[in-house]
């Protein structure tokens, strides 16, 4: 007779001392784990509910804000915790995000601050305004040490240099490495930091340029959008414009994708934001719909995975770059029309500047928390994320994950807009139905808003 039985020694499994961890042997045989799918689904559902329970997107505001609406936000790309903001009364402020306090504040311009950026390397920021001046400011606290805030504020200390322009300016951006910056306005001009006058005029027939942006990867490319509904691309190496596209309504802001150098997003007056490929501007790559008023600003996350838009409808919406539906919508009772949005350089927070004079800090992921997490907690969060991804199409999970409370005004406006769009579509369909087949072709949504490009594919102008 040959016989063997299971005989476990309890010493292997039961800890001898209190301080010892008890052994937890695993056996991955599926027979020991029944209801795998149902249990995972339940866990995914719980995780989704927990995520919504912990969703607290609003972190706070920076200091006491400004005294007028905030129209530009510029981040310091060298650090994660410093940003600059400019407001309607000509004041610019430099903020420490970790303290949520201002480190410098200057009365920079008479009238609005219309462009702001933090220069790379040197700790200065450049601002431009309606008063036809461009000013460079030091943000090093040593430059104005010993003076109290009032003094700095009034005396204009910290001013490094002033450039005089011939027209009021709108939009400003600095080159990633070289000491040059570009300004918009009646003309689009390239300035050298060390010279007093502009070095290049790039204008191509636009009435007024609203926003200019340097590409931060292909660093010699500049994009601008103007009040003649155009988006124009320039190359500063050849001192020429490359391409111009005219859309059906005005573009308010631009943002380059930091990871895919040839893609950029535009915020449009027609309630949508668009994703473009600069090589092929006769159609956009994606349309970010859902706002119920003009989109005033757009910003790419540093990973290039997400886009945040701020709108005149007083909401802030986050879209995944390649997806059609919005991921998140943020609003508060007191927030007014948003004119500027920006991700922080670590992509964890979003800043919004609005008409109500406050700079608000939002979490990129509403349920994310800053506190250091244990390895166990982190793996749990990763596991939950995987489960949520796996079961995201299940009706109940989808419902809970997508549900957002909206202000009545926005909700109502959305409903009205939907009805209007449906009516338009119905009318178009009816039109098509009663015309000769093929005479009224379908125009894809991504092409609808494009009026045309200046340079066609075959090179003819």
């Amino acid at each position, binding site marked *: *007779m*040959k*016989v*063997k*039985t*299971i*005989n*476990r*020694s*309890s010493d*292997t*499994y*039961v800890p001898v001392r209190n301080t010892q961890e*008890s*052994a*937890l*042997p*695993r*056996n*991955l*045989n*599926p*027979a*020991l*784990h*029944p*209801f*795998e*799918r*149902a*249990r995972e*689904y*339940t*866990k995914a559902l*719980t995780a989704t509910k927990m995520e919504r329970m912990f969703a607290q997107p609003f972190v706070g505001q920076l200091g006491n804000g400004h005294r007028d609406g905030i129209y530009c936000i510029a981040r310091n790309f060298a650090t994660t915790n410093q940003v600059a903001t400019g407001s309607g009364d000509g004041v610019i402020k430099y903020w420490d995000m970790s303290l949520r306090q201002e480190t410098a504040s200057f009365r920079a311009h008479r009238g609005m601050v219309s462009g702001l950026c933090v220069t790379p390397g040197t700790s200065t920021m450049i601002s431009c305004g309606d008063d036809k001046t461009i000013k460079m400011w030091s943000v090093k606290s040593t430059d104005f040490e010993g003076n109290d805030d009032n003094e700095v504020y009034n005396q204009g200390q910290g001013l490094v240099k002033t450039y005089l322009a011939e027209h009021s300016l709108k939009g400003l951006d600095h080159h990633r490495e070289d000491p040059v910056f570009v300004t918009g306005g009646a003309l689009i001009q390239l300035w050298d930091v060390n010279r007093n006058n502009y070095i290049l005029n790039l204008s191509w027939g636009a009435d007024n340029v609203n926003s200019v942006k340097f590409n931060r990867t292909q660093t010699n490319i500049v994009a601008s959008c103007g009040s003649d509904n155009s988006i124009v691309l320039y190359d500063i190496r050849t001192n020429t414009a490359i391409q111009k596209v005219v859309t059906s309504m005005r573009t308010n802001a631009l943002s380059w994708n930091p990871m895919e150098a040839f893609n950029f997003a535009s915020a449009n007056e027609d309630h949508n934001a668009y994703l473009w490929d600069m090589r092929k501007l006769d159609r956009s790559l994606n349309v970010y719909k859902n706002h119920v008023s003009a989109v005033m600003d757009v910003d790419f996350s540093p990973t290039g995975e997400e886009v945040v838009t701020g709108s005149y409808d007083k909401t802030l919406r986050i879209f995944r770059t390649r997806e059609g539906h919005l991921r998140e919508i943020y609003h508060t009772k007191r927030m007014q029309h948003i004119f500027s949005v920006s991700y922080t350089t670590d992509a964890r927070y979003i800043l919004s500047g609005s008409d109500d004079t406050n700079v608000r800090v939002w979490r990129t992921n509403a349920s994310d928390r800053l506190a250091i997490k244990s390895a166990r907690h982190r793996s749990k969060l990763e596991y939950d994320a995987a489960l949520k991804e*796996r*079961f995201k*199409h*299940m009706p109940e999970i989808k419902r809970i994950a997508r549900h957002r409370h909206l202000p009545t005004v926005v909700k109502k406006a959305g409903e009205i807009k939907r009805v209007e769009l449906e009516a338009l579509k119905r009318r178009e369909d009816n039109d098509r139905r009663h015309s000769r087949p093929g005479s009224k072709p379908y125009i894809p949504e991504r092409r609808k808003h494009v009026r045309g490009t200046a340079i066609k594919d075959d090179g003819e102008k």
Partner: protein
Amino acid sequence: MGSHERPNTEKFERGTLKKHYSKDKKLNAGLKKVDRQYKEAVRAAAGTDILLQEEAGFLEAEGPMEKTFKFKQNELADAVDQGTANKKFDLKLPEFGPYNLDYLRNGRELLLVGKKGHIASLDWRKGAISSEHYVNETCHAIKSLHNDQYYAVAQKKYTFIYDKTGTELHRLKQHIEATLLDFLPYHFLLATAGNTGYLKYHDVSTGDLVSELRTKLGPTQAMKQNPWNAVMHLGHGNGTVSLWSPNMSTPLVKIQASRGPVRDLAIDREGKYMAVAGMDKSLKIWDLRKLSEVDSYYTPTPASSLDISDNGLLSVGWSSHVTIWKNVFKNKQKDPYMNHLLPGSKVEKACFVPFEDVLGIGHQHGFSSIIAPGAGEANFDALELNPYETAKQRQQQEVRSLINKLAPDTISLDPNVIGTVDKRASSIRLGPGQIDDIKNNGEKKMDIRADVKGKNSALRKHMRKKRQNVIDERKLRIEKNLKVEKDARQRRHREFKGIPEEKDLLGPALARFK
């Protein structure tokens, strides 16, 4: 770990992979990624096999003359190590028998209940009694709930829930005259059946009666859960076995399993096979995936108790014998694996101990624990069921399992149906209310009505009233119209079912002159 091929990955596979995806490139890339991850996971899981610490037991005969079923328990006890030999013991309880029993899911606690009202719970490995009390009324069955803290007892009229110390916590007044108990641990459902012919599900975490199902098949003779999909299998007096889920008022499946009343049944842990014993002395093995009979055995007297161990041993208690069969699901066996006799004491219930090579037998004069090598799963998963868990771990596990409690309406024959696309027609898939919703939203389609509907219309009434032999113009017209309508209906029905139109073979009579 999952980067290279490994042997023995079949055990960890879940279904087969698709060869062809859709035409959508983007979707394809995503699906391929999912498949790659799945393959890696399977290989990684197969790679953990070498880390398993324990090996399963066995009993083998040496030489052609030896038979494993001839070995007596005493001989086995001498041959095995002392730790195992200690697990063979007898409790002589002659007064309150016969004894029914239940083991906790991790195999630690043993619950005993005598027909005449003796209830005991004990840590059988230590031989320590946790509680013992007498209820002075008939007790039919006992079942431990999600951990060793609570158990339910089916008594003369009501079912009661006791805690570990034997304190009565609840009297379940909805469960009248239950004789059979079972507990679905992942759903926290206590299922009872008995003389009333009702199957009732009680959620023990909320205290709600989830559903009561009328079997309409008289007193229930046997009840076991399918541990793989939580479907309850009920054996009835007319020899049928019916499969129930709490959200269906009719059985999911009905099987004619034996000619006489069903005595007992058992299902293996992966829900693939079912053994059914009948009053006609038959013992049949069923494949639950195909719902077909695999093999048939017989017992000298009708079997009273069946159980299937983790490793697939089948114990059959009949009269005062217990026979253990091995490999019955693979092929037809000539000889049993083991035999055990309890002289002069009828077997009431035999249960394998989870994660041990031990079989517990409740009988007329008490309880016996015998050695059954190769019965138990050698390697437990401590995050699932841990025989060595501490009080702290038990508490945490309780909370965790309550958070992950499965909804009763997820119970279905295929446990992996969640998250899949239901490809059936909406008329089958949806309830009446949901169908109406869809109809009101979407376009209205022409309904295909069953022929039975509207049979008693005013027109037909009129037709019936008319005398049969009188033929007038109106009658002819009506008959013709009715025929046209009927043809159209049938044509639509054929179209709906996708049956091609039959061509008239001969064609009209005058066609030949064309």
